[in-house]
């Protein structure tokens, strides 16, 4: 499941306060985590590459685009990067709102370093898992894209559990032809069994149980 050698996971820090930003970099450096720091949400968006694995440590309150607005932008772009918000004492309602919009976690300033590091590690693990399943998803989709229209029809009927004879009647084909299509579907999809084939289809339809 672990992705092959790629860019190392990076903690992206977005905080407009230079001292807080630098201290976070220093803290992460002391535990050997790579960081990239940005002074504003806009600066981060300009430089962010979705292919870069990592997580985002984000201050809720910032002039210009706030942390919540940045989260919204990332959601709109379909980014999967886990976001950990850091908030002040009075910002709990904002943190709750962030969680409702899919934030991974939040922490109140100032925090125990171990709390932050634990959360970062969980967020990076989550990101790796997200990326692995996205990759798997892409792999399956590209395989299914090689199916011919006729093979797709057969696939649909297969996943509904229709017998070859029924399929042949429904599609107006000979049973022998259906068998050939069926074999091609199994071969192209790489599924080892009908059960696995059904799971792949559900995955593509986004209906895979969590």
């Amino acid at each position, binding site marked *: 499941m672990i992705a092959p050698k790629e860019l190392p996971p990076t903690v992206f820090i977005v905080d407009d*306060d230079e*001292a*807080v930003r*630098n*201290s*976070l970099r*220093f*803290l992460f*450096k*002391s*535990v050997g985590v790579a960081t990239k720091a940005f002074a504003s949400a806009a600066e981060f968006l300009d430089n962010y590459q979705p292919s870069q694995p990592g997580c985002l440590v984000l201050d809720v*309150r*910032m*002039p*210009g685009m*706030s942390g919540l607005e940045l989260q919204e932008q990332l959601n709109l772009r379909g980014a999967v990067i886990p976001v950990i918000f*850091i908030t*002040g*004492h*009075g910002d709990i309602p904002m943190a709750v709102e962030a969680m409702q919009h899919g934030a991974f976690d939040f922490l109140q*300033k*100032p*925090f*125990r*370093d171990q709390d932050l590091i634990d959360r970062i590690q969980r967020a990076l693990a989550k990101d790796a898992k997200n990326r692995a399943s996205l990759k798997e998803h892409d792999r399956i989709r590209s395989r299914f894209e090689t199916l011919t229209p006729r093979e797709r029809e057969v696939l649909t009927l297969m996943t509904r559990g229709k017998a070859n004879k029924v399929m042949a009647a429904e599609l107006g084909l000979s049973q022998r032809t259906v068998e050939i299509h069926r074999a091609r579907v199994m071969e192209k999809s790489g599924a080892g069994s009908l059960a696995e084939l059904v799971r792949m289809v559900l995955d593509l339809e986004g209906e895979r149980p969590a």
Partner: protein
Amino acid sequence: MAANVLMKSDPKSNGSALEEAARRELQSSESAAHGLHGRMLHVSRLATIGEMAAGVAHELNQPLTAIANYAQACDRLLSRPGADAGELREALREIAAQAVRAGDIIRRLRTLAGNHGLQRVPSDLNSVVTEIANLLQTEARVHGARVSLELAPQLPSSIVDRVQIQHVILNLVRNGLEALDAVSGERELVIRTALAGDEVEIAVIDTGPGLTSDVAERMFDPFFSTKENGTGLGLPISNTIVRAHGGALRYRPNQPRGACFSIRLPLESHA
């Protein structure tokens, strides 16, 4: 009471004694009124500061967070053999700098909260603004906004009570920031100083919804407020302060939208 006692004394001296008593009473009630006014200003200033507590707490939290992060990172680095002294020193210097930063925040707040007597001194109004610039940024941050200063390159001095004028500016900025809450996207508030004839103007400009003519008409009415929890005293007290300086506080719509509050103060040479 004093007048009644005096009535019983020599009738001949009655007239002048009465006058004397009346004058004394008037003086004492004037100074009482003056004291009350002074206390009211102080209370109003404290109220403003109280309302700013959230911003100040947030602002103090920043250096504290940085200090905690550096200290904990140092602890980690030291627990390993061969810790880099240069790296540790860098962190220690930052810790010291952030402690000073926290101290500065508290000092600025104490200056503003202190109950000082009237202290009118010749002042460059630019410096009156820049002295509280950090406090204003703090306040702006709470509203996700930015305060930018557009200061005239050189201003002749005016005779002002710096803290009182700063209190007025704070009031106006707070109002402006609250108006900006209604705006999405970039929220910016401008403080502009300029020489205007024989006066100096400090303008606080926002791009919020502005004032309806109804509200503009009543803005100096005590206890009139458009805010849910407003005291309705901010603008009336600000107005009183500016007028006591021989100046004027005015509202005009900002183009293309928003509000512009202008504090006009006479130059020292024209005071």
